[in-house]
């Protein structure tokens, strides 16, 4: 599973981080960092929750 974030849409509100902190981190500099671009299948449920929670639909799974 590959994570793609549209950084033009991302508002750094960290909802994704609350669902999957292993994959997404919004740092104090106000930017979102993707900690694992290709997380394992065991992360799928959490990443899908992040996709659904993201208020700007900035995250897609490829």
């Amino acid at each position, binding site marked *: 599973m590959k994570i793609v974030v549209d950084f033009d849409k991302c508002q750094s*509100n*960290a*909802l994704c*981080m*609350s669902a999957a902190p292993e994959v997404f981190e*919004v740092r104090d500099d106000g930017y979102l960092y993707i900690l694992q671009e290709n997380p394992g299948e065991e992360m799928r449920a959490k990443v899908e929750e992040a996709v*659904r929670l993201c*208020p*700007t639909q900035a995250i897609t799974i490829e």
Partner: protein
Amino acid sequence: MPDPSHHDRVTNTSGAVGSVGDGERKHVVIVGASLAGLRSAEALRAHGFVGRLTIVGDEGSAPYDRPPLSKQYLSGAWGEEKLWLRARGFDELNLDLQLNVRAESLDVASLALSTSTGDIAFDGLVIATGARPRRLPEPLDHGDHAVVRTKAHSDELRDKLRDGAKVVVIGAGFIGAEVAATARCRGCEVTILEAAPLPLERQLGPDMAGVCAGLHERNGVTLHTGVTIVATTAKSVTLADGRSFAADVVVVGVGVQPNIEWLQGSGLTLGNGIECDETCRAAPSIVAVGDVACWPNARYDERARVEHWTNAAEMAEHGAATLLADLNGTPEAALSYMPVPYFWSDQYATKIQFLGRVGGFDEVRVVAGAADSGKLLALYRRGDRVVGALGLSMPRHVMAYRRLLLENASWREALASVPVAKAPGA
């Protein structure tokens, strides 16, 4: 209108719509083609529903997202390509999306829906008709006052928010405050008139509402609270104390009301929206979700209608599961919907984020940052439990509380996970 590739399956229906589900296959109809309606469709498919799926929506445009309408889209920073819900299209959902079609009445007893283009029979129904802006009471209401709920509203208002334009915003709730902030960023001269002594007090409690109200003055917008409006024209507002404000445009943001009039006489219980049980069920095989639905949230012992984006998304998922339980003949399998509500609001450079509910809280404590620094994290206590977390421009820290709130954590636990200095709060 979007590029056709955004809505391959969209049928701009003019003829009558097909009737009952064929044989074994059940037919689910969703009324309202916005966030809650689309998320319902996605969740039904994700939960394995293979029957017929029809969405009926009265707007003409492909489904779009509303929060940017008072923020990035209104300011001009975002074009319409960033508004579409499901930019990837509808093919994989295999549904009949009927735009420009209005649901006109419902008969719960016979499971029949009447629309502007004909009758539709269904086995299951999702009602997601949302809300519309409340207007000023007569005789203060004026057709030329702007409101912001639809894409067309936002387009129309943007044209009027020219550099130097005088803007009067009636109502300092979230939408009014965001419109004021966006207008200010576009170089307008902005005045907000608010009837309550303190805006957002119900949503944030007095102390934090005060902090948020302060954002306006700090950004060069005048906020008058506790005012009584006695007269308006298209371009002016007069108060009971005699003050009068001239404007190039008057914007009204005095809240929304649920779209339930079409359900009068349907057999559903209508009150503050559609009154549902704790599982989002409005009647057997009928669920209501999003801004239109009122339900008892057992987590907070309160029956409420929540008018926020995340609730529309989460409630749609939950409602879909309840509906499938009913359609499968196992209504007792439906679970209670007990979310930790979340909302955000972007005003000027400040990102306001709130998790939980403030209702009946005993204490609010600022645990990081400070009001005058523009960054702050505050926790709300009820009894010995943490019930809310507010962040001003501290996204990673406030979101770290989501799990604790979902676990109904104690106040002591919440205080123990306060971020210290630069350490992560997660």
